[in-house]
């Protein structure tokens, strides 16, 4: 008899204790889920997945992050006026967007230095509601190498302008495009739009397909603008040098309601 009673009791206590253990475990993991919102995997996807994107001049086939960085440069505005036209940035938005989850937003931006009037920005994805919890991962994609240390405002400005113009108007290639009937008018239009935005006359060198001169004029105009703004923004040329940035910054945000 004793034995029967004690067994029942024994099992009952055991079940009770198991129940407590389950509650303990659930209690430990349930609040943890909120902490675990993580944008790292999404950033990794952007950095490692590749896709082809068509442009006016061919197909660019590279990682999504690299696409975003290029598109950011091509979306650059100066005092809110566009420097370039073209279908590539929109095509990149579409391609990146189709590779993102619904609760992720990606922003890519470039600015040569804080508070520059020249800036580029691209945003892809769905903006989070105000009450959402957000996890962010940041990465940077450099646009230039070999920038030598510069010591004065004007040389820093010149270097920045030169790197930028060389990147978006590679003069040997644009020259070949200007002398080839199949590409000449599209390339000339690119120069004209940039010239208009920067208030630079491009027609004369354009008629000669003199891309050295074209690039010199464009980067001269940019350099002047940069130098003025750098002097306003930074108290010394040294701090200006440290404050400049030739990287495109990409921020990936994953949010949860």
């Amino acid at each position, binding site marked *: 008899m004793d034995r029967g009673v004690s067994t029942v009791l024994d099992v009952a*206590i055991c079940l009770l204790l198991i129940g407590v*253990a389950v509650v303990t475990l659930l209690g430990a993991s349930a609040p943890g889920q909120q902490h675990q919102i993580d944008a790292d995997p999404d950033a990794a996807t952007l950095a490692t997945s590749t896709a082809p994107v068509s442009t006016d001049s061919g197909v660019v086939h*590279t990682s999504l992050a*690299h696409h975003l960085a290029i598109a950011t440069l091509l979306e650059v505005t100066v005092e809110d006026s566009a420097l370039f036209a073209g279908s590539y940035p929109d095509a990149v938005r579409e391609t990146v967007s189709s590779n993102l989850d619904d609760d992720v937003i990606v922003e890519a931006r470039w600015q040569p230095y804080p508070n520059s009037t020249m800036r580029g920005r691209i945003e892809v994805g769905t903006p989070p509601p105000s009450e959402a919890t957000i996890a962010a991962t940041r990465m940077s994609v450099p*646009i230039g190498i070999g920038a030598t240390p510069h010591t004065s405002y004007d040389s820093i400005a010149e270097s920045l302008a030169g790197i930028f113009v060389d990147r978006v108007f590679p003069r040997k290639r644009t020259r070949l495009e200007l002398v080839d009937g199949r590409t000449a008018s599209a390339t000339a239009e690119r120069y004209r739009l940039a010239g208009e935005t920067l208030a630079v006359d491009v027609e004369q060198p354009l008629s000669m397909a003199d891309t050295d001169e074209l690039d010199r004029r464009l980067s001269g105009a940019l350099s002047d603008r940069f130098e003025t703004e750098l002097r306003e923004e930074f108290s010394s040329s040294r701090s200006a040098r440290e404050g400049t940035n030739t990287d495109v910054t990409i921020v990936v945000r994953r949010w949860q309601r």
Partner: protein
Amino acid sequence: MIDDDRGRVPFAILGVILLASSVGLVATVDDRAVGTSSPDAAIEGATAESATALRASVTNAAIDAANAPVTTPANTTAGSALSPKRPFRDALELRVYLHAVERLDRIDVRRDGVTATVSLPPIEPTTDGYREAIDRVHVERVGDDRAALQVTIENVTVTATRNDRRVGQIERDPTFVVASPVLLLHDRTSEFESRANADLSSSGLSRRLTTRLYPIAWSRGIAQYGGAPIANVVGTRHVELATNDALLAEQRAVLGASDPGGDRGVAAAGRRVATTDLLAGVGGDEDWTDLVLSTADEIGPDPPDRSPVGTWRDPPSSQDISIEVGSSADRAFVKVIEEDDTDEIGRLLERSHTVETKVVTETSRLFRRTEGGGSPGYGWRRDGSSTSTKTDVSSSFGRPPRVDGAWTVRDFRVYTVTKTRTTKRTWRKENRTRTTERTVVRRHLVRIGVVARTPPITDVPSGTLDGPLSDATECATARSLDAAGGWRTIARDAITGSAAMSKRRVVADPRSDRKTGIRELRDVREHTEDVSTEVPAAAIGVGRVDPGATLRSKLSTRRESLLRYDGRTPQDRFRRGVRVAYLDALEGDLEERSEAHGRTTSVVDSAVKSYLDPARLDGVLAAHRRASRPEPTSVADPAGNLTINVKSAPPYLPTEPVDRERIDVRGQGDVLALATRNVNVFSSPHEQVAESIIDRIPWLGADRVSLATAAATLRAAERSNSSVDGRSRLRNEVRNGDAHVRGAIVDTLIAEGFRRSSAEQAVQSESKTAHRALAVTNGTATERILDRVAADSNADKRDRVRIQIELAIENALTDVEARPSRSSTSRTADSVRETARNELESVLADELEDGSKEARKGVFGAQLGSLPAGLPVTPVPGYWFATANVWYVETAGYYERLALRANRGDGVGSITYVRDGGQARISHEGDRRRLGTAERVTFRASTVIVVVVPPGGTGVGDTNGVVDERSPGWPLEIPADDEAHPSRSMPNGS
């Protein structure tokens, strides 16, 4: 009970244990979430970012490398690190490494207090340092079409640190594929360049040039032969056009596309060649270049779908030449028909009606018997002897004697012949005398036949003895028998071996006549003179085919049907015999033709050899058959279909200098990017090479030229308005030559039975000397004479007289009296060229544009176009079946710039592979360093063009006196690589 309880664990205890572990587990999870972190997250993040950095590095390095491809390393610190065997790939690897070092260096990933950075081993700015960098990068073409670029980079290290303390490190050799066709562009360009310099033994520019020049040269050569005013069959502009078209075809075949600007240039040049460009050297080549370039502009940006040219895409309708038995048939005909000491027809007529008989005997011994003895005994001496012989002939029976197959036994007898020989001897011993008698009897069986046959005629079956020949056979049989003395005499003689053969011949009354024989002869001549063989004309021109041999073998397969008769009657045998004689004579003639051809061939070979290995001529001939426009094949990489655009400067390469600006090339001054040379090997029959052919024909003096050549030269001289040196002297010589030939014709006519007065009247001509002489040499005079002298004769007679006249002309033309001197002819020809050029200059000075075109045509067409040229293939009169000419053509040039653009890019433009002589540089540690040079793409091709036209006329060749025609840029100088405009490497993009 106690025993039962032992070993038992209450469930409650298990519950306690579970609870305790769950609490512990929760504590552990919380601890990880908020406590000290592991470096994995940071390392993962840095690794992911490095993927983008490496991809961007390769994309930009590839674009830089394509922009300034290194084909020759510079003798610098960086350049020396490149292997001379693969400078382009090494430079690409170095660029990838430099980009990657910089970009990876900027990666800085922070996760939970851990910082991850990425690095590659730094490189020293030394040759060894750069070499190490190159060794750590591997590039390769991958994919189905091998259009993509696979890159492996060794020693990519990710390091994680927390508070400056290293907490983790991994090293990897990532491999990835980038959709960049940089290696494909380079490899194709290299192949293009190597094919553009290949000789005829392999496919490439030389072969394509050949296929394009042939039709141009042929159509112009045949037009010249046909009387078009062309003085320069293959000119610089044609080589220019063919070179450009060949280069564009190579671009399409190898690069995958061609420059539409080049297509326009070729279309424009081709249009000119096909329409207005009949004349050479007209208006100067600068004007030509202007025309081509401005027409190219007119054609506009869209190249025409169909080339308007038409002349050289479609090969000329017949590239084969038909070689006929032709005059060989006449020569064979005459050889058979001639009634001189070898009257072949008469001989055959007689022979086919002849019966030949003879006596044959066959003897066999039946027995031999000896009776009586010798010496009577010991001591007896022979004192004297006498012998008597007796022969008995008696008829017997049996078969006739055996005879050779051709003979048949017409009558026979069989006899037994017994010969008894008795010898009486007198013997003496002391005083005694004794007589002995010895008898030898020999008996033979003798078979006697009188046999007959028809005498053999080569390749004709033996004839039947009955029918038309039976009387003759009987007669001959009787005569042979009589001559031999009758049957019994023959039998008697036979056993001593002295029987006469008593050959006798009797000719029957002919059942045929000479006329029949001539009719047969004419018939077989008609059936053979049109026998022809089609051989590739170019093959003849370069002696790769022996037309004589080809015709011989063709005739031999038809021989039996040409002989037609195989009957055994005298008529049939006669007719067949005549045909056999004719065909044998024809074969002999064709054999001589082969020999003459062999002599020509060796001259062509030695002439060509000084320019090109004759073995390669076979390649020329093969190439000549294939002129095709290759279609590019499609190529795809992971990003889809790859298209390539080609842009060359100049797009159309002229042989005249063009301003750099006009072809959109950087820098000042002119570009002279194409140089050509063409040598007309047999520019005129009185020039050096042709001379050596004449030398090999022993009876033609080397210091003389043919009447045709001299007369044609004279005609050209007489068309000139100005005075031409040596014209009257040449006219005298031509007049004498013409008179000699006409004299020979008169003799022939007299021999044919015409009266001297009518013969002399018939050969009169009122034309000018040159035309008269030409009429004699080209056969038009023969018809005229024939019309005058034999208008009333019947066809047979007329035919016969024509052949006799033709032969007389042929023979007379080889006489020294009919051959004007080489010196007067050459002097006049030179002078014609000189004055023509002067006249042209004054015409050009006087008139402009439209007016001058007609005037130019007059000057050049009438004079230069009618100067004779070319190499008569087998120039022995009568065997001359074609005139050939050979051009050795060389072309060399370079593209000031050749750019290939593929539809793969970096967002702001496409990858463009540029070969422009520019410098390739890299940036490293703030310095620009020279890697090497992107050499200009050059090309060089050479070939031989052979043009063959029918015999007669003025032949084919350049008659403007420019044997070795060189464009202004020859020999080509390729400008030094461009130091003044260093190509800039792209700064790295994002």
